[in-house]
């Protein structure tokens, strides 16, 4: 049963449910709940955030973070120097290369799966089992500040992937999926309702509810009233979704979808959203791997590098964990259609920002990139690493009634050498 707290009626009691499922958005717009119990309460002071860039389909490690030029499977591209001496990445990422001093690389991820769904879930949940929450939902649960009208976990994606992101944490921590820079449904007042009429009818509604409250208030009626309050706050932030970015931003980031989504992600992080996930689709390059990566990473590189610049310049990088990930990598072997296929056995992840030592390379693959040669890690290790970097003790149990489960997979541990 929903419990009602009679002590206060602040926005922090306002929550929501699996809303937005119908019109293309698959989540609840939610405010974080009450401050968590003791072990996590202190985390809310400096607001920690996560920016996830998900290169959907499986980016090739060869054409990105772990180039093997001149080897059997290396492909046509060169490796270039980066802003970190000795760290070389693929020439398809020239802008990012100049920002590698903000990032570190893990080149030894082995997920032991070649399935899109399984790989994505391991990377998001840090576990192989079903029924665990995603990175963003965990972040929303333990880091989202009270009183922010925006939801704790927003996923910007142009395609529908079915994700049960909140699991047992509950729908208030589920992702709010936005199809690009699109506002939630019904966020605008109808033009046929004048602003005066809108204000008056809402006042009258409040009056009616005050009368109903005298009958007896329950947790549910509070939630109900809160949902209207939150909706009105969201309407007042409409410009966040609707305003065209300034020309200077478009110039620096670019004008295509991913560039716009990156600008939007920056704005959301600035507005206090705890986890923003931007999905860049189209890396499943079974054919024409090289042409597609040229195109895809060409789209990715500049906006991402600019986003890092902006986060850094605005002082957000210190409190924001940045992760660039995929559900797996791509095969060393180049197939007959010049493609690379699914490959979960050795992929790379780039991460940086809050709590992560920059400029490091953890683990390596062998000479031809056919297997992990050193410091093999799993999605579970990465999951521990993300949250330990943000200061959450992942060995503690989740705040879950009944059977408690540790936040991170107890079989795994953080990559200590990455933690600042």
């Amino acid at each position, binding site marked *: 049963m929903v419990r009602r707290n009679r002590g206060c009626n602040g926005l922090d009691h306002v929550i929501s449910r699996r809303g937005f499922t119908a019109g293309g958005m698959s989540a609840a717009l939610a405010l974080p709940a009450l401050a968590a119990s003791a072990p996590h309460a202190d985390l809310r002071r400096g607001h920690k955030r996560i920016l996830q860039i998900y290169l959907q389909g499986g980016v090739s490690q060869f054409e990105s973070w772990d180039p093997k030029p001149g080897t059997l499977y290396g492909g046509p591209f060169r490796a270039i120097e980066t802003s970190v001496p000795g760290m070389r990445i693929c020439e398809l990422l020239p802008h990012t290369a100049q920002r590698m001093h903000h990032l570190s690389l893990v080149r030894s991820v082995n997920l032991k799966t070649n399935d899109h769904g399984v790989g994505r879930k391991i990377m998001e949940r840090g576990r192989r089992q079903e029924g665990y929450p995603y990175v963003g939902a965990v972040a929303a649960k333990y880091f989202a500040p009270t009183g922010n009208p925006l939801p704790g976990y927003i996923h910007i994606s142009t395609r529908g992937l079915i994700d049960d992101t909140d699991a047992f944490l509950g729908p208030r921590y589920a992702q709010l999926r936005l199809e690009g820079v699109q506002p939630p449904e019904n966020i605008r007042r109808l033009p046929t309702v004048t602003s005066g009429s809108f204000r008056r009818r809402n006042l009258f509604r409040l*009056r009616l509810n005050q009368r109903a409250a005298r009958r007896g208030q329950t947790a549910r009626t509070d939630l109900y009233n809160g949902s209207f309050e939150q909706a009105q706050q969201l309407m007042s932030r409409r410009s966040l979704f609707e305003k065209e970015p300034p020309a200077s931003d478009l110039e620096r980031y670019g004008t295509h979808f991913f560039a716009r989504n990156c600008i939007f992600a920056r704005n959301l992080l600035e507005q206090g959203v705890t986890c923003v996930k931007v999905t860049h689709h189209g890396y499943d390059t079974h054919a024409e791997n090289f042409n597609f990566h040229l195109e895809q990473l060409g789209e990715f590189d500049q906006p991402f590098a600019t986003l890092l610049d902006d986060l850094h310049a605005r002082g957000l990088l210190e409190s924001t964990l940045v992760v660039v990930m995929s559900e797996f990598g791509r095969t060393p072997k180049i197939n007959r259609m010049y493609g690379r296929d699914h490959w979960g056995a050795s992929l790379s992840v780039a991460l940086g920002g809050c709590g992560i030592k920059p400029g490091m390379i953890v683990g390596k693959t062998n000479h031809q990139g056919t297997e992990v040669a050193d410091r093999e890690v799993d999605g579970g290790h990465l999951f521990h690493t993300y949250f330990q970097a943000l200061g959450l003790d992942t060995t503690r149990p989740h705040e879950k009634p009944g059977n408690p489960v540790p936040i991170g997979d107890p079989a795994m541990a953080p990559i200590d050498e990455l933690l600042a």
Partner: protein
Amino acid sequence: MNRLQAVAASVLATCVWLVFPLMAEEADVVEVQVDPPTITLQGPAARHTLLVTGKTTSGRLQDLGDTATFHSDTPDVVSVDQRGVARPLSDGQGTIVVEVSGRTLTVPVTVANSASPREFSFVNDVMPLLDKFGCNGAGCHGKAEGQAGFKLSVFNSDPVADYHAIVHQSRGRRVFRAAPEQSLLLLKASGTKPHGGGVRVPPSMPEYDTLRDWLAAGAPYGDDAEARVDRITVTPGKRVLTTHSRQQLRVMAYYTDGRIRDVTRLAQYESNNPGLASINDFGLVTTLDRPGQVALRAGFMNRFAMFQGLIPHGERIDQYPDLPEHNFIDGLVYKKLRALNILPSELADDAEYARRVYLDVIGTLPSATEVQGFLNDPSSDRRAQLVERLFQRPEYADYWALKWSDLLGVQRKALGHKAAYAYYRWIRENFAANQPYDDFVREIITAQGALLDVPQANFYKVDSDPGKLASRVAQTFLGLRIECAQCHHHPTDIWTQTDYFGMQSFFTQVKKRGTPRGEVLWTEGNPQTKHPRSGQVVHPHPLGTEMPEEAAEGDRRRILASWLSDPTNPWFAKNLANRMWAHFMGRGLIEPVDDLRATNPATNPELLTALSQSFIDSDYDLRQLIRTITQSRVYQLSSTANASNRLDEQNYSHALLRPLEAEVLLDAVSQATGIAEKFEGVPSGYRAIQLWDSSVSHYFLKLFGRPLRTSACVCERLDEPNVAQALHLMNSPDIHQKLRHEGGTLARLVKTHDDDESLVHAIYLTFFSRPPFVAEKTRALEYLQQASDRRTASEDLAWSMLCSIEFIFRH
């Protein structure tokens, strides 16, 4: 011989009450008692928890453990900590002194065999710790593949395997007998070495000592034939508590050899209603601010016992009024309310009753005309007559068919369009004809033949796996959750794998085949189900019954069906009565409604028994059950709370506010605005509660939580309010167009009501199903008069009402 034991010798039999004069600060405590009055501590590991209880002037018992101080007068013989737990130090006679409320009580202690080396048993000493510290939980080493190469049986189901895993596996690296502290088992459990599960047993805990001493003793398994836990008890078993108070429990384990052991520290606890009271790892109960009844479960080595706490509201009501009773329900509810010092609310007025009964019985808002007609009805039994009229409405069958289609899984995608529709029609016809409920269930369970002729056989298509069918039948028709017992015994109930497979094997004969005329279902053969661990054949037998020597001939499901609907079945009628009660009252007598078990008792067991008996006596007549519930005065109480019942959500002291289901709400919006909703694939004029297919795509229905019908769980219906709903109500063109439509209610009312007063009256009757109160009318009139446009202002008013709690909720 003696292992760790605390034998409470000569306990409880001779409780001595110490009477003393009233203290100023605790004026109402007149007597104090320490339980037990004497203790015997046998063996080095014995423990005993002392409970200190005061008796008040009114005769109420109260835990004084918080204010009592304990100390040992013979610190060489026995020690005692501040929670009253005594431990032996050396053999001899000792005394524990308890000071409480200015009085001093003494407890004589006999310590024996405290120096003899402890004889360890893996099963009795180590396994309880694996349980208590969650090592063998399903999220850790208990899961099927283990954790980090270390696998334990889930919930202690296989002691030999667990012993082997700890002592022998991985070349015995987990134990180091010569230096027990260096054993991996302890290094990990204490967090000295990195442990994914974190620090579980820090060295400061006595349980750490137990593990270390067991290792030092050579990590023995112990005697296979040794005693096992037979049962456990919780002391006290029942108590009346106050809000914001604490109560220490003591859990004693009784072994098969007659030993008794205090296992308060080792037991696991759970509250069935954490909103009323919580319990910590050491058996200390803390109540909150809410009155009601709470059950706290203690578990130790798969034995369970319960503490029941009644938490009354404030002060006793001396002059509890003599309240009128419409039928047996009322007396039983009042009895409980009286014990809780709660007064029920007033009787709801006719309009409130009418709206409620329309929504509850036929899932439909009454129209303004219907409300007015009912308000004008002079007959004294108009409330009962109204229910009879509602039974005759087509919406009655629509609504109940919708409810049961959720439960029975009418899914177009899984079953196919034609089959799902036939299945739905069959369900609907049963409710339209008021088919007795036992027949309804029997026909489902024993269904066979061509699916088109016997549409209820689709039940066997929603789930075709015999195990899933067994779980679904148990959950839907008995309110029992048995699926845990597929892999291990149920962790909080009595069900074992034998029970599970006994149910499963009822469904192993079921066969299906496609034919040119559609699918056909029949049963055949004599398939045998084997117990997954023992490999022995499990013959079909219903839950809680003896397994027969061999399986019966013919269609086994007939045995199940007749057992289900037998009047002596302990769950069948109760499950239905509880589900119906939950529907009408907003809360089941047992919650969740599909979790009936001994350790989750009904809040009012007498009422549940009486209600289910009346259902059985009526030959499972669903309408009669609805009559009984709706005619009770308790059902007809107002939702307006009073000072004593404001916090009560458990005992039916007032009607609870509950949001309307998605379909009912959408129909209510359409009806009040006078503009019907259009749905895909059905003729126009269909209402949402008539939609037999829950996958008909519809933004509003999805947004407001229509279930997908993928499981038998009622929790599939999500009814938590959210911001997307609010945005939809505020800004969606759909709602707006219904309000503004030229053919809609408001256009009509504005035209037909020239004076504002009758316009307001009509709007209230339409949207709130009642006339406005004087103050409301004044405010609404002001609103209309201030506006430049009467039509727009009426729409504003109607919109406000439509979005208000009074419209969105049942009350």
